[in-house]
């Protein structure tokens, strides 16, 4: 990972014109705890300031200086983004502060950036990458992989995307500064969810019968029956849409089944 360049003339850092590698690493590591103080008032706000703090030490006056304190206060306020996409914001805000961008422009930039970073991240990570990696792991489980293999397949695959995205976001955010929104037009971010969705749909078809067979362990006929009933149940669940969350129904059905099996 390379340190990004910065055109700031006022950054009184050890290495003029560049964000020192140690600062970059501090910010990157802090990004993993960006949601540490997540709450319903400021959402990600405090976490953004927490992550930016190492970069703000490079402002004239250094740690504890007036510019440092004002910038920290500005970024500790309400902000929302997908946590893995927070790096884009942190990098871009740090660049803007170090470049001496006027505070009112930074405020407007903060307001404009939150929404896209949330929606793109939700679509790419929570609604695409995570389900895909789960389905890969479930397929491996259905193919009788050992526990360690299943866990390793899931964690390595998922975190390859996770760690890369955080690092890329921070780098691009710092490089682009106020133009970071351009990066959200990247084909990977725009079309990625569709491609991932296509692969996930195929994998779901493979994983369900195989996983059912492994859990039941009573032969193919039972697994086939379970698969057919599950598909019918899944179709019904999707028809009920927002009114029926799957896990709630699962909880109710299993509670009834346990009562039946104990009392019956």
């Amino acid at each position, binding site marked *: 990972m390379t340190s990004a360049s910065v055109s700031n003339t006022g950054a009184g850092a050890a290495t003029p014109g560049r964000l020192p590698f140690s600062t970059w690493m501090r910010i990157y590591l802090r990004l993993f705890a960006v949601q540490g*103080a997540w709450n319903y008032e400021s959402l990600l706000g405090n976490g953004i300031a927490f992550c930016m703090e190492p970069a703000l030490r490079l402002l004239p006056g250094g740690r504890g200086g007036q510019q440092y304190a004002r910038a920290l206060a500005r970024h500790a306020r309400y902000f929302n983004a997908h946590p893995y996409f927070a790096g884009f914001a942190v990098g871009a805000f740090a660049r803007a502060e170090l470049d001496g961008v006027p505070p009112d422009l930074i405020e407007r930039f903060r307001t404009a950036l939150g929404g896209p970073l949330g929606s793109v991240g939700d679509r790419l990570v929570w609604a695409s990458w995570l389900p895909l990696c789960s389905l890969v792991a479930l397929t491996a489980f259905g193919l009788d992989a050992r526990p360690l293999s299943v866990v390793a397949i899931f964690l390595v695959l998922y975190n390859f995307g996770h760690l890369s995205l955080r690092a890329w976001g921070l780098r691009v955010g710092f490089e682009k500064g106020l133009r970071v929104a351009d990066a959200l037009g990247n084909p990977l971010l725009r079309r990625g969810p569709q491609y991932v969705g296509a692969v996930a749909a195929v994998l779901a078809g493979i994983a369900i019968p195989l996983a059912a067979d492994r859990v039941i362990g009573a032969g193919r006929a039972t697994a086939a029956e379970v698969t057919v009933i599950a598909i019918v149940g899944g179709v019904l669940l999707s028809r009920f849409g927002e009114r029926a969350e799957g896990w709630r129904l699962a909880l109710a059905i299993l509670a009834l089944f346990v009562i039946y099996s104990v009392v019956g």
Partner: protein
Amino acid sequence: MILIDVLPIALLGALLGLDVVTFPQAMISRPIVAATAAGAFIGHPVAGLTIGGILELMALGMLPFGASKYPEWGSASVVGGALYASQMGDPPGALAVSVLAGLVTAVASGWSMVRLRRLIASRAATERAALDAGSSSAIIGLQLFGLTADFVRGGAVTFIAMLLFRPAVGAVVARWTSDATFSRAVVVTVGAAVAAGAIWKIFHSVPLARLLFLGGLVAGVTLLVMR
């Protein structure tokens, strides 16, 4: 079960509960990982993986968007995995009741996350003046407070759930009357139906999604027959 047996499981639940939102969100809290880890802790990783697979199917549709409220699967999967793995010989009903205990824990743990977020907000309100002044110690302090409180939350949820459910699971399994295979089939059918519904909800806008799913299903059934 004596308290000292529950403490290591509670510690695991605290660590994996922390991963859900606060740190590091590497998805070590996903059921297929967390339940397997709990099973391995007890000495039966395969049992942990089995219940983890079912809980993972059920968790597929849970997308942690923004400020939405959702079940917390990390600590819950540790509870489910530990309960199932500790049932020697896999008696009938052990899987069903362990999955149920895991689900109940997930709901309770999700509720505790909401309370925690409110607690952090009230702590932030008391520190408002320092935060508005750009005090780095206030900002870092609030972050550390949230991380520590979430760790304690996950541990407490796991600890209480284990104390409540361990004897309950034993009692239910002792009175279980349904056939073992049928019981497992019911559990996995429910999990698979939830997964199928979730997959459809998430990916229905993908072009040819229905065909792709059916193609995968044919491949899956073929693999099953060829085994």
